[in-house]
Each structure stands twice: as C-alpha cells, then as structure tokens.
C-alpha cells in the first residue's frame, strides 16, 4: 500500500528515523502502578547524546535556550562540543550550572556556560555562531491555544543559529486541539521562517513485542507514550517556498501570523 519512499538525499544505515534511545523495558501494567509517563518537556541524556552526535561535530557550539535540567549542555561538553545553556528561572539555572560543573569535574573536554537570559545589546558578548540549537518543547499552555508563545519562541531561535546549522526540537507526545504537538511545532516553525526537514522518533523505553498491551481496552484511553517526537529544522532561506499548501486543522485556532 505504501510505495517506494520518495526521500531524496544520501542515506546510510547508521542514521535512521527511530533513535534507539530507550533504556527501559516496558511491560503491561502491574498492581504497583506505572511511573509517570514521559509527557513533559525534558531531554534525557540518551536523546541529547544522540542528537548531538548526529547533528554536530567536535568543536561545534550547541545551545539549549530553555535549559532544563542540563542534559544538553552536559552531553555536549562530554562529546567535545561547546555548550551554552539559557535558564531564566533561578532554580533551573542552579541545577544546570551544577550539572555542568559535575561534567567538567569528570573530565569533559568541551567548554560550557549557563546564562540567565538571552544576550541582548547590553550584553558584553553574544553567543557567537551556534551550530546546533537543541531543546525540548512540552505541551502548550492552555491559556495560549493559538500557539503564539510557541511561535515567538521559535522565532527567537532563528537569531541564535548560524547559517547552515540545525534546530532540533524534542516534542513530548501530546495531542490536543485536533493535532499532535510535533505537527503543531512543525507548522509553527514554517510560520516563523524555519524549514522542517525531517521527523524522527526517540524511544524512551524499549518496546517489547510480547508486552505491548494487546488486551482490548475496556474504555478508550489514549496511548501510553514510550517515545518523543523529533523535528529537525534548518533556517529557511526561501521563506516564500512551500512544497504544497497545507489545510489548517479543523480544531486548531487560527494563527495571527500568515504562513510563510
């Protein structure tokens, strides 16, 4: 039913759209109850390490503009990249700074810093050229159903990245407003001058074919997340280009920004 894949560009078996970043087995429910599902906006060390390996090179600079809890910066400096984390919340800043200090104490070769805000004209220095912006995005704020804050956030990221760099967004599995979060992120990226390049999947647990939960549900419940969605962007040098018009989802609020 599905035909030959029309993907273009060179491909290699080492790079696939499903990242083997799950470190836990999963099984059907036990009486003790499950741990909280991975629906929040967090980057695990395994997912951060995979993204850094694939989308950057040693010596590159990596930025997590919403640094929590520091996995991106610590994995980056361990991988001989330079890292900049931005955490505006004092508690997050402390946690990220402590994680970075531990990484350096363990011999990480890259340099890193944690800022408490994005550099602006009054800052003594900017970030310099950033090769990879790597960050997580969680479920949208219910008070912002139109996704304006998501667009604002993605628009700010454009100023961080050097031409030719990558923005990699890790999106929690979340469906609301008739659309999954990753699709909302991809659409918001298009609206703010990003070119979505590819979607991938990062496993957060190891799926087992025998223990996936095959009993008929007594009530219709949403699926249990064992993955996070990955959306890879590059700066869109041709903002007017769109390979085909997209229909707006029926239940999604209209954006005040016209599509690029």
């Amino acid at each position: 039913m599905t035909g030959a894949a029309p993907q273009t560009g060179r491909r290699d078996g080492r790079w696939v759209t499903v990242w083997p970043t799950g470190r836990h087995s999963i099984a059907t429910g036990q009486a003790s109850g499950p741990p909280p599902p991975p629906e929040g906006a967090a980057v695990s060390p395994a997912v951060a390490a995979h993204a850094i390996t694939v989308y950057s090179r040693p010596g590159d600079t990596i930025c997590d503009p919403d640094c929590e809890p520091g996995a991106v910066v610590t994995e980056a400096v361990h991988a001989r990249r330079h890292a900049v984390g931005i955490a505006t919340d004092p508690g997050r800043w402390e946690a990220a700074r402590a994680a970075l200090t531990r990484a350096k104490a363990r011999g990480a070769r890259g340099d890193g810093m944690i800022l408490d805000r994005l550099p602006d004209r009054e800052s003594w220095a900017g970030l310099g050229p950033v090769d990879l912006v790597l960050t997580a995005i969680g479920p949208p704020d219910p008070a912002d159903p139109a996704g304006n804050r998501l667009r604002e956030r993605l628009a700010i990221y454009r100023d961080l990245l050097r031409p030719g760099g990558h923005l990699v967004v890790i999106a929690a599995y979340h469906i609301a407003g008739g659309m999954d979060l990753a699709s909302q992120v991809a659409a918001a990226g298009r609206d703010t001058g990003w070119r979505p390049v590819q979607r991938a999947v990062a496993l957060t647990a190891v799926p087992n074919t025998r223990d996936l939960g095959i009993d008929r549900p007594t009530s219709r419940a949403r699926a249990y997340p064992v993955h996070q969605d990955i959306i890879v962007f590059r700066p869109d040098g041709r903002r007017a280009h769109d390979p085909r018009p997209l229909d707006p989802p029926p239940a999604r609020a209209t954006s005040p920004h016209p599509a690029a």
Partner: protein
Amino acid sequence: MPVSDPDRDSRAVVPAGRLATVWPCPPGSPARPPAGWLQAAVERLVTTHTRPGDPVLLLIQPGPDAPAGGRRGTPADRRADAGWAVARLGRRVQVRTAPAVRAVPPSGSGPGLDSADEGPDNDRSPLVVTVVDPTRTGWVRGVPWARLLTPDGLLAVITRSDSVDGWLIDPTAELTAAAGRHGLALLDRFVVVEVPLNELDQPPGPLPRASVARRVHSDLLLFAAHTAVSPMSGVPR
C-alpha cells in the same frame, strides 16, 4: 553514550488497557517475513479494537497499484496479506477501493463507496483501515468516513512523513482536516517501526551534509468521533 547522570532506573510500565505509542516490527520468521510490519500493525488494530465476527473495512487508495509480475512484497501484496490476516482473526473483512474522484457518486453504479455512503447501519464497521501516500492525499477528502463507521468506530490511517528536496512532507494536517470534515478527531498517533529493533543499534556519527536519515517507521493516525475523544491526553474517556 550517554555519559551524564542517568535519569531514572525504574522499570517503565504500560498501564493495563492502554497501548504503547510505539509498535515494533515483529522479528522475521519463516511464517512471517521481515516485511510484515503492515500486516502486524493491522493485526494489532483488529485484535485490540474489534471482536470476532465484527466487520473490518480495508479501504484502498485509488490509482494504479496492481501486483507486479508475481513478485511478493508489492503494495498490493501487502494489502492482500493484511486482508488475509483480518480474516484469519475471525473478523469479516471487506476490501474496497475508494473513489478516485473528490465527490462520492450519487448513484449506486460503478466502483466506490456510494453504497456505503447511503447504506444502513449494518454496513458500518467498528474499524476502517486505510493507507495513504503522503504525496497523494486528495482522495481522502471525498470519503464519507463517519458514514463508514459505527458511532464508536475508529478510523486508522497508516501513512508516513518523508523528506523531499530538503522539505518535510507530513500529511498529518491534511488528514486531520479531512477527517475533521466528517466529525472525526485525532485520538492517537502511533509509531510503526518497519525494521527489527536490533537494526537500530548501529552507532551513528555526524550526519553528512545534504543527507537525511533513512526512514524506518510509518505513522498510524487513529481517529474517532469528536464526541468520543477526551480533551485530556492520557485520560480515558
């Protein structure tokens, strides 16, 4: 990899009555070749969302898609395998081709879904399964999905995202809009892995420039009537 502090060591558990969002490809065997990911996905859908004796509709995308020279593994072969799998599970399988035109024909003549469009409730299925090419989604708009389903029925659309000329082609928005016109809303989005998990373990390096990762998964979008979908993620209705 990774080298920083581990995040948690607890054993993640899928609660009873819920499916995991990732469906791995079953390992190959003499009875099931590795290319059986689609058949396995359909089997999982059927066993979890229907009972023996229930009708299951496999709706086929219109257009040239015929078996090729006796070779197995063509799209038509996989469709036939999926149909046999449904029948083997004791469900009444119907395989139909969707109309190629946008509008459903008003009369009962010719191929298509016109009879289902106006048919009685006993023509409806608790599960409709279809596969959509991400570059050919126009036909989806013309199908009266809600009329093919029982009131609490599910529409399962198997599709994929591709990278074409450096752009992501993701049909989710179009499919969601098409389903929404017929009163259906997205309930879940599953990841169907097309290769055995052990094929994912090759250590990567920096992705060469102008390259994209090899696609090894498809997406399964599950739609239900708007009234059947809880607005809260993860909460049973």
